[in-house]
């Protein structure tokens, strides 16, 4: 794949954790969005030694492209093992792009309760927003051509790695 080399995901993760460290407390609820966001959230949760158990979200039932593209095949389960009502939450995703996934995630969260606040952490912010959504914590900001997608991979040893793919159209 031509172009500038991608940053090392493990380095971005360290940067993200350090940004978040002063801003979250032990009672903060961390919610990883499947699948890449859960990988990032697991590492953040571990590094920051949060008390509240980690939550995971599969936003497939809330996506706005369901009418056009149908239900995703590989559904994961949403697990929020804590009370959402009144809690300060941080949504964690791997790549922030159009913002539509985050919109879906917010809708899902509000079906569980009314959180005190919701902030957003992402490993990579690649721009291209289609909704008024911004990340409070980002490992890096990248410029990527609209025809391409950035994806997070995890190898057998648990190491995270970024990859640029041609978007299937």
């Amino acid at each position, binding site marked *: 794949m031509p172009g500038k080399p991608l940053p090392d995901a493990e380095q971005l993760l360290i940067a993200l954790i350090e940004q978040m460290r002063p801003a979250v407390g032990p009672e903060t609820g961390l919610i990883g969005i499947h699948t890449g966001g859960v990988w990032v959230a697991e590492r953040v949760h571990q590094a920051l030694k949060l008390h509240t158990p980690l939550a995971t979200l599969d936003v497939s039932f809330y996506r706005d492209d369901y009418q056009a593209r*149908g239900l995703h095949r590989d*559904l994961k389960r*949403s697990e*929020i093992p804590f009370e959402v009502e009144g809690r300060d939450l941080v949504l964690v995703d791997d790549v922030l792009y159009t913002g539509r996934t985050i919109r879906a995630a917010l809708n899902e969260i509000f*079906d569980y309760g009314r959180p005190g606040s919701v902030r957003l952490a992402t490993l990579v912010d690649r721009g291209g927003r289609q909704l008024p959504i911004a990340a409070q914590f980002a490992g890096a900001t990248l410029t990527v051509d609209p025809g391409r997608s950035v994806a997070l991979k995890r190898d057998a040893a648990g190491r995270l790695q970024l990859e640029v793919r041609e978007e299937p159209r």
Partner: protein
Amino acid sequence: MWLNPSNPQLDKKGQLHHLLTLEGLPAEILRQVLDTAKSFVGVKVKKLPLLRGRSVFNVFFEPSTRTRTTFEIAAKRLSADVINLNISTSSQSKGESLLDTVDNLSAMHADMFVVRHSESGAPHFIARHVAPDIHVINAGDGRHSHPTQGLLDMYTIRHYKGDFSRLRVAIVGDILHSRVARSQIHALTTLGCPEIRVIGPKTLLPAGVEQLGVHVYHEMRHGLKDVDVVMMLRLQNERMQGALLPSAQEFYKFYGLTDDKLAAAKPDAIVLHPGPMNRGVEIDSSVADGKQSVILPQVTFGIAIRMAVMSIMAGNK
């Protein structure tokens, strides 16, 4: 024609458009439904937004409480609007034809029909005549098919037994009149179950049932020997009136599932029943309420299966 000519349940992309029968449905689609259902089981949110703004018409030409109710709950949990129509008590008795009924319902902007009919093939007929954007789900037609029941039975088996590749499954009772049995046999075969047995008196087994790849038994204890799964069928009271069976008591004596007969199966065998049960006819209360019974979980899984079918189909254009 927008549908796949070789299988009118599928669209040109091979995705589920109508659910009419499990016969000929690829294993991949069966697994898709089971996997999707799994993600609906135990969802804490009471209402998911997938079918918001869609209208699901439960069109029942034959009475049913459980199936209709579970379809209604499933549709409502997906935020659909649900309209229940008991046709047996309305227009049909006034002489309206099936097609006229369906045309009228389509004109009321239905997105999905859930059809139960006493005539085999009625849902196929309806599916052939509705507009391309309408989906039809068969909720039981005559002796032919009851696909969502078959799917929820498969879900139940997979939940308790993991996979199908080493299972011995027995289906017991009135196979002849049972749309449930046919759906179970097709689904089990497609999902790779190596040994399917049917157990019942000769008068209640269809001629040539072996051609479906099943083993036939007339004696309960032989048939149940070392099975992993026992699927009981409801003995329909109306069958008693003909010459097919001497009496309910006689049937119970030979084919009613008692603890004693169940002892022939594996100790961890599970017992399924599609409901409603005739206690003391095809199943003894001590088995129905016993620790091997998974009859109530079946009902719960049935809602998830129906949510899965509806949300997969409504997402396939």
